[in-house]
Every structure is written in structure tokens, then in C-alpha cells.
């Protein structure tokens, strides 16, 4: 039976709540214990104590206590509410919802429980449930506007546009007098209603409604943009034209306005070039400082028109010394004519051919200006010859050296020089040069991060962190790295992880990828606060945008890159369990005994070293901890306590019993949110075929072939798939085989001779290194006896005219994974080194 408190204890209980509110946790606990001394079974007090413990970060104590509270007082909504809050803190939202619902059944009138429930339902995207909760809240407090708006959001997101609109209109009709002009909440709510009408597809009415509110609305830009958009979509061209011209008068540098205007005028970039040119010329004349009206025509102009326009544009930019000029122009390089023309023009500038006629007074230019122009031109050309579509690294080097001679202190120039080294494949020199650029301006955070990135590419993880630490808060728990994690500095974590993966330090690599995975969890978490906050602020359109963005947040490139690398690490761990102990130095699976012995010895050494390293790190950590504790005792107990990472080296991650299961955690998100990345599908295949999930493997193959049926990796996987199925020790369930029999032929016709199929593919793509490598890989699977022959063919790919450095490195990795003889590998490396003399990858065998 629930205990009933004496009046004195009841007032103490109120104290507990007050302390909790004020975050005076220690006092709260003390008071709660005072009550419990007399009433050890009091459920509500036990629950409150659990809640406070949880707030202190002791959730392992909090949970049993909350359960005990529930046992003592099953009928208390407080206990259930606390139980729900604890689940929420654990991020188990389903259990939390259940607990809240229980609490609500016991206390249907409690607005707090109702609100907490609603927030969770939104977080879980349970729109029907959210609507129910919101309706109850609205009925309880109809005088608050945000309750009405929230009701509308519930309908809107569930796709019930008419309902949503009706709710908003109903509220508007209750207003006695029009709200004041400065009422932002009203202004936003009305615009929100307008977007609902538009989303329901009734543009005519949306336009009408928009025009009725346009005068008083505070977000003028949004109103004008929406109006122009509606007019265009309603095919009211001349009005749309006017609307877009009005927008351009406000901002003549925003491309979407031009796109809209072109459409309104019915102009086509492929046909009406002359008319378009006139249009843009007019805007360029009226906005002499604007970029867009000058830059856009370069997209569609051709021939001499292009040459003239490009000459003017480039001369203007380069004489102003605009450093981003090349970046702004390089998207034109996909067109060969434009690429060559630009090269001609700028090389002409370098040889002293200016466009004198355009701004006549060249002689007036001071020498300084002329120098600035010259170095801008040289800089442009260096970038030009460094770019992958127009690459000539020797020329690039010569131009950047000249530029550096002119301005030896330029950070930009040295940075480009580092980039050139990168493209040479020389990570060492790239990193050194970037570091040199950094020293030219140590206060510049941009060049600092660049230097760190290049160091990571060169696997100098410690140096990179040291550089980064110049801009981090180093007193954070975990030092500079801890701060980078707190600040969600994902590019760093990603590069760091990929670097460790290259070095086969799987623990640290997985640690970084896992951190990125967790950061995305945090992003998902972060929206929680906005479910209440945005409503209070009345910023509904932005809120709805945010919700939709959150739904696809894991399609972000950072996530897919981290996931792909993590999956690669896990599959490697699955294939070579020995890797857990540290890198296998000389390829994997070395089959000749000598190499193996050497390997083992070296590995032992490496292990020893790693152990020492770890001991050192731990000692450091101890010291840091001690220091911190000292600081803490002076700082007092207040402030958030951050838990120390118990496994900074990622040992638990790497020692996983089921690497493939762990890979699936990344893979599921990857396939759900980035199904259009072909590497996601091929990575999925690798995981599923190892797991023996043949249908899922087939699904990946089918999806990949829809993206690119000639993908080299896909080709090799199809052959491996068939080969694996043919040699299964146990037959598949009959239904599974019949699915495969029905679907595989679309990729690989039945009864195809695999060897022949492979040779055909090889012949078809004889000029592509990536395809050759894949086909050779497949040939090796099909016919392991032809080893020597295959290895020779692989080396032959080095002679292909269009093979890239990356592909050549890939080939070396393949050769290693085949456990090819040392001589073969050395020969490959030598041949590659001849072609890429600067590349670090081929510096030694």
C-alpha cells in the first residue's frame, strides 16, 4: 500500500522537487533521504530520488530505484512519469511512451505528462498519436495559440492538409481584432498556413491567400519568392516575369531568381542564347559589382561569344586578384572547348596579352597592380594545370613556383603547391608544404585545418592533432581530441579514422567511425528540444523544414563515407581475425613460410610497441586524471560532469566477436538513406555474402546493376555470387533457390559460362584499368591455377594510358591480397614508380 506522508514530510517532499528544479541535486538527495528514513516505502519520494540520481549521471542506480518505487506504488502517476523520464534519458523512446501513457491513464488531467508524451510521439514520428495528444492539450488550454498551431502541424505532417488548414483558420476567426503588425508569431503562422495550402496542390488558392496577406506579412522575401514560384507554376508567365524581376532588383546575385526569370520568359539555355545574353547583359550593366549576371552566360555561350565573354570575365576577376576565380570557373571544364579556350586566354594573359581595349588605361596601372595581376594569373594557371580535367603537374609546378617567387608570403600559393604534391601522390611533401603554408599565418584557422588534414593523409596522426590543438579547448575531458569530438568536427574524425584504417590500426579507426555514427545519433537527439522550443517561438516553417531534414540526416556524405570505411574494416577483420592484434605488415595471408616468419617477428615487435604505447597513454591518462581531480575539488561539484571514455583505443570495438553484425549497424543506415551510392550496394554485398544472406546479397547486386550495369566491382561480385552458390555445402531452402533462379538471370543469364562471360567483359573494357582489375580478380576466383598469368596481366594494366594513380595503388593492394611473390610485387612497384616517380606509395617495395 502506498504510504501517506505526514504534513511535515509532505512539505519536505515539495522541497525535494524544488531542489530538483533548481538543479541542487545534493540537497535534493539529502531531503529525500530524510523522508525515506521515516517512510522507506514512499513511492513518489523514491521516484524523485531516482530522477535526481539520473540527473547526476548515476543512471545505473536510478533504474533499480525507480522500479522499487513502482513496486511500492503502482498507482502513482509520479512513479510512472519518472519511469518514463528515465527511459527517455536512456533513449528508449518506445518504453518511455508506454510509461507516459500509463501515467496519463492514472492522471488524465496532467498537462506535463501529456506534453512529455506528445514530444516523444513527435520524436518517433507517430503522427496519429501526436494528433491525439495535441487534441487533448488543445482542449485543455484553447486560449494558447501555439496549441492550435501544434494541432495543425500534427495534421499537416500526417498528410491531412484540409484538417490542418481548418485548425489554423478556426483560430484566426476567434481573433477579435487583427493582431498587431509586429506579431511575429501571427505572421509566421499565416505563412505556414500558406505553405500547407500550396503543398496540398491548390496553387490557385495558395496564391490568392498569399496576396491577401502579403501587405502585412513580415517576411517580405519569403512572400515574394513564394508568389513568383506560384505564378510560374500556374503558368502565368508575364506576372511571374514581373515577380522575378522585382526579386532581382532586390538581389541580383541569386541564381534561382535568374532560373525563374528564364522560365517565365520561356527562354531555353540551349536555343535562345542571343536573347539570354541580352537579358544578362542588361543585369550586368545595372549591377557592375555583381557576379552572377556575368558568370551565368559562360554556362550557355559558345564559340567566339564565349571567348569574348570569358576573356572579359577572367580579366576582370584576375585584375581584382580574386583568389576564388578558378574555383568559380572550373565547372565549365566538362566542356572541352571551354576548357581549352580558358587555357588559351589565361596563358595569353601570362604572356602579356591583356584586354587593353576593355579598360583602355593600362598605362596608368601602377607596377604594384601589374604585379598583382601577374601573380593572380600565375596562380590561376597553377590551379588550372592541377585540376583533374586539365592536369599537367609539371606545368602546374612551374607556374606556382613563379607565383611564389612574386609573393613568397602567400598562404594561398603554398597551399596550391601542397595540393600539386598531393596529386603527384607524394603525401610526404604535400604535408610538409602545407605545414609550411600554415607557418605563414599561424592565426588562420583555415590553413591550420588544411595542414592537419594533409598530415592525416600522410598518417602523421599525432602531428595533426597537435596542429588542431592550437584552436581547440584543451582543458576538455579527453584533451584536444575530446574537444574535437564535442564540437562534432567530423572531417577530422573521418580523416583520422581513414588514416588509421590505412595503417591497419583497426581499433582506433573503428573508434573514429563509431564516433561519427554517434554524432548523427546526437543530431537526431537534438531535434527533441525543438519540438517545444519552435512552437514557443512560433517559427513553424523552419521547424517543419528541420523535421524533414532530420528524417534523411544520415544521407549526409560524412555518414556514408564513415559507414563505408567502417564496413571495410569489419569485413577485413572478419576475413583475417589476426588483424585484431595489429597490422599484418606485409600484405595479408602471406603464404610462403619465410615471409610469414618475418611477418610474425615484425608483428611481435609491432605488438610490443603498441603495448608500450598503450601503457604510455594510460600513464598519461592517469596523470591527467589526477590533475583533473585536483582541479575538480577546487571547482566544486557544480557543472556538468563528463564521463571519461573508458576505451580510447577502441579495443572493445576491434575485439568484437561478430564483426559482420557490427558492420550491419552501419550498413542498414547506409542502404536506407544512400541507396543510390553504388559503393553502398557493393559493400552491402560483401557483408551479406559473408553472412550467408544470399537474398540480401542478390538485392544489392540488382540495385547496383540498376545504377551502373558495367560497374567493375559489380561484375566481379556477380561472378563470385554465382560461384559461391554453386559450391554451397548445404542446399538453400527451396523458396530461396527459386527466388534466385528467377532473379539472377537478369544479371547473369542462366547457364552462362562464367569464364567466357568474364573474358567478354575483359575484352569490352580492355582500356579501363578498374575494369581490368576486377575481371582479373574474377579470373583468379574462377581459375586459381593461372596465377602467374593473372599477376602478369595485372602488372600490364600499369601501361594503360588512362590508368590513375589511385587505380595503380588499388592494383598493388590486390596483388598483396593475392599473396603474390615478393618479386612480382617488387616488379609491379618498380613499374609503377617509373610512371609515378613522386608517389609515396611506390617509394619502396
Amino acid at each position, binding site marked *: 500500500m502506498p504510504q501517506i506522508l505526514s504534513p511535515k514530510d509532505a512539505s519536505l517532499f515539495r522541497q525535494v522537487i524544488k531542489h530538483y528544479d533548481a538543479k541542487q541535486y545534493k540537497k535534493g538527495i539529502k531531503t529525500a533521504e530524510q523522508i525515506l528514513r521515516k517512510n522507506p516505502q514512499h513511492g513518489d519520494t523514491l521516484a524523485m530520488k531516482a530522477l535526481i540520481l539520473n540527473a547526476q549521471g548515476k543512471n545505473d542506480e536510478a533504474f533499480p530505484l525507480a522500479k522499487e518505487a513502482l513496486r511500492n506504488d503502482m498507482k502513482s502517476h509520479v512513479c510512472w512519469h519518472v519511469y518514463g523520464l528515465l527511459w527517455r534519458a536512456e533513449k528508449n523512446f518506445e518504453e518511455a511512451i508506454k510509461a507516459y501513457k500509463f501515467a496519463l491513464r492514472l492522471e488524465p488531467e496532467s498537462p506535463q505528462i501529456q506534453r512529455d508524451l506528445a514530444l516523444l510521439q513527435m520524436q518517433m514520428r507517430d503522427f496519429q498519436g501526436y494528433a*491525439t495528444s495535441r487534441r487533448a492539450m488543445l482542449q485543455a488550454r*484553447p486560449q494558447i495559440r501555439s496549441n492550435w498551431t501544434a494541432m495543425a502541424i500534427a495534421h499537416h505532417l500526417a*498528410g491531412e492538409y484540409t484538417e490542418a488548414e481548418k485548425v489554423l483558420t478556426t483560430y484566426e476567426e476567434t481573433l477579435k481584432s487583427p493582431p498587431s503588425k509586429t506579431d511575429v508569431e501571427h505572421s509566421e503562422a499565416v505563412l505556414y498556413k500558406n505553405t500547407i495550402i500550396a503543398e496540398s496542390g491548390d496553387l490557385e488558392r495558395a496564391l490568392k491567400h498569399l496576396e491577401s496577406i502579403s501587405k502585412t506579412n513580415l517576411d517580405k522575401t519569403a512572400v515574394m519568392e513564394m508568389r513568383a514560384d506560384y505564378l510560374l507554376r500556374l503558368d502565368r508567365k508575364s506576372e511571374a516575369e514581373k515577380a522575378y524581376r522585382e526579386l532581382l532588383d532586390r538581389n541580383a546575385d541569386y541564381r534561382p531568381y535568374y532560373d525563374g526569370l528564364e522560365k517565365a520568359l520561356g527562354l531555353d539555355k540551349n536555343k535562345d542564347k542571343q536573347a539570354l545574353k541580352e537579358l544578362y547583359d542588361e543585369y550586368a550593366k545595372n549591377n557592375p559589382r555583381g557576379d552572377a549576371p556575368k558568370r551565368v552566360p559562360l554556362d550557355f555561350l559558345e564559340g567566339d561569344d564565349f571567348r569574348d565573354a570569358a576573356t572579359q570575365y577572367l580579366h576582370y576577376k584576375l585584375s581584382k586578384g580574386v583568389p576564388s576565380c578558378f574555383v568559380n570557373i572550373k565547372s565549365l571544364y566538362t566542356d572541352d572547348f571551354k576548357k581549352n579556350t580558358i587555357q588559351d586566354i589565361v596563358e595569353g594573359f601570362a604572356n602579356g596579352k591583356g584586354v587593353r581595349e576593355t579598360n583602355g588605361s593600362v598605362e596608368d596601372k601602377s607596377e604594384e597592380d601589374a604585379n598583382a595581376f601577374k601573380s593572380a594569373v600565375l596562380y590561376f594557371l597553377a590551379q588550372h594545370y592541377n585540376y583533374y580535367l586539365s592536369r599537367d603537374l609539371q606545368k602546374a609546378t612551374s607556374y606556382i613556383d613563379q607565383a611564389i617567387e612574386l609573393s613568397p608570403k602567400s598562404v594561398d600559393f603554398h597551399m596550391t603547391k601542397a595540393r600539386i604534391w598531393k596529386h603527384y601522390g607524394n603525401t610526404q611533401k604535400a604535408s610538409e608544404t602545407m605545414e609550411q603554408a600554415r607557418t605563414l599565418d599561424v592565426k588562420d584557422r583555415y590553413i591550420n585545418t588544411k595542414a592537419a588534414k594533409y598530415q592525416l593523409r600522410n598518417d602523421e596522426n599525432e602531428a595533426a592533432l597537435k596542429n588542431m590543438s592550437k584552436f581547440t579547448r584543451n582543458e576538455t575531458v579527453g584533451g584536444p581530441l575530446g574537444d574535437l569530438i564535442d564540437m562534432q568536427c567530423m572531417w577530422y574524425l573521418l580523416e583520422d579514422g581513414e588514416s588509421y584504417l590505412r595503417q591497419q590500426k583497426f581499433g582506433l579507426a573503428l573508434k573514429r567511425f563509431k564516433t561519427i555514427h554517434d554524432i548523427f545519433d546526437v543530431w537526431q537527439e537534438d531535434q527533441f528540444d525543438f519540438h517545444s522550443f519552435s512552437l514557443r517561438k512560433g517559427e513553424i516553417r523552419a521547424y517543419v523544414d528541420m523535421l524533414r531534414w532530420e528524417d534523411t540526416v544520415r544521407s549526409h556524405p560524412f555518414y556514408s563515407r564513415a559507414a563505408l570505411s567502417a564496413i571495410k574494416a569489419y569485413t577485413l577483420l572478419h576475413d583475417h581475425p589476426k588483424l585484431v592484434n595489429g597490422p599484418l605488415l606485409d600484405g595479408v595471408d602471406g603464404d610462403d613460410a619465410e615471409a610469414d616468419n618475418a611477418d610474425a617477428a615484425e608483428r611481435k615487435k609491432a605488438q610490443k610497441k603498441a603495448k608500450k604505447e598503450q601503457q604510455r597513454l594510460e600513464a598519461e591518462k592517469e596523470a591527467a586524471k589526477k590533475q583533473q581531480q585536483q582541479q575538480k575539488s577546487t571547482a566544486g561539484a557544480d557543472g556538468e560532469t563528463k564521463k571519461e571514455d573508458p576505451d580510447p583505443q577502441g579495443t572493445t570495438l576491434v575485439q568484437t566477436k561478430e564483426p559482420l553484425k557490427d558492420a550491419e549497424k552501419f550498413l542498414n543506415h547506409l542502404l536506407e538513406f544512400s541507396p543510390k551510392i553504388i559503393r553502398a550496394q557493393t559493400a552491402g554485398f560483401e557483408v551479406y555474402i559473408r553472412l550467408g544472406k544470399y537474398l*540480401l546479397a542478390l538485392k544489392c547486386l540488382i540495385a547496383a546493376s540498376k545504377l551502373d550495369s558495367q560497374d567493375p566491382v559489380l561484375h566481379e561480385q556477380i561472378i563470385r555470387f554465382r560461384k559461391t552458390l554453386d559450391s554451397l555445402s548445404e542446399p538453400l531452402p527451396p523458396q*530461396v533457390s527459386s527466388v534466385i533462379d*528467377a532473379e539472377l538471370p537478369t544479371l547473369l543469364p542462366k547457364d552462362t559460362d562464367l569464364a567466357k562471360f568474364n573474358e567478354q567483359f575483359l575484352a569490352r573494357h580492355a582500356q579501363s584499368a578498374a575494369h581490368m582489375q576486377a575481371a582479373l580478380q574474377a579470373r583468379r576466383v574462377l581459375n586459381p591455377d593461372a596465377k602467374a598469368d593473372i599477376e602478369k596481366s595485372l602488372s600490364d594494366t600499369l601501361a594503360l594510358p588512362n590508368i590513375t594513380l589511385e587505380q595503380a595503388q588499388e592494383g598493388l593492394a590486390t596483388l598483396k591480397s593475392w599473396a603474390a611473390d615478393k618479386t612480382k610485387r617488387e616488379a609491379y612497384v618498380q613499374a609503377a614508380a617509373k610512371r609515378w616517380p613522386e608517389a609515396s606509395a611506390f617509394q619502396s617495395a
Partner: protein
Amino acid sequence: MAEPQPSSVHEGATTGAEIDENEATSNIPKSAEDRATAAAMSSLDTRGAEEESVAPSKQLDSEALGKAMKNLNVSGGAAPAKATGGAAATAPPAEKKKAVKVDQADVTLLTEQLSLAKPKATELLKAHDGDAVRAMRAFVTAA
């Protein structure tokens, strides 16, 4: 610069969420002394002040509001039933719940082969008249 971004890049995709300070200031404890216990529980959650901090608008016509609420109650009561009425995006399975017999062995097969959760597997089988091969084929070829 006006360079178009690749379509895979979302505007503002990298900025983390920021929370206004008001979030924190709204947590200021109220005098709980004279409040009854139950009322004091109201601030259990740290974001307890949401409703209280918003004063009802003065321009509100309470009479009209009452009427509006009545209308809402009418439509609100009926809403769950006709939820699918005006909605194109609501889930269709509510309507076509045909009585399809699903073999539990097939469900197990699907959960194992396709790594699906049980309810999902059942749903998939139902959508294909309980035919495991057809269900799996559809799953494998779905984009």
C-alpha cells in the same frame, strides 16, 4: 560565389543545432512553497515552463473561442475515423486488410533470409497473398 552546388549537398547541412538561451532561462524555479504537491510535480521536466510562460492573447474573443472549440470537438471526435479521408499520404494498409492466411514457417523464413522484423515480414507476405517466393522476389527487386 554563385557556383551551383552539387545536388547532394544540402544547404546548411553541416551546422549543428543551436538552442536558444531562453530554453535555459525558462527553467527558473517558481515559488513552490505554497503549491500543493501535485502542482509542484508539474515542473518535473526541465522544460516545464512552456505553457505557463505564454500569456493568452488579449485580443482573443472568448465567445468565439468557445464556439471554435465546440466545432473542433465535433470534427475532433470524428477525425480518427475519417483520418484517411482527406489524406493522400496516410498509410493505405488500414483499408485493405484482407484476410490473408500467412504460414508461420514462411514468416520465419523471411525474417531469417531478409533480416526483417516479424511484423514487417508478415506484412510483406500479406501483400503478396502469403506467397513466400513472390514476396521475396518483390523485396529483392525493390529499388
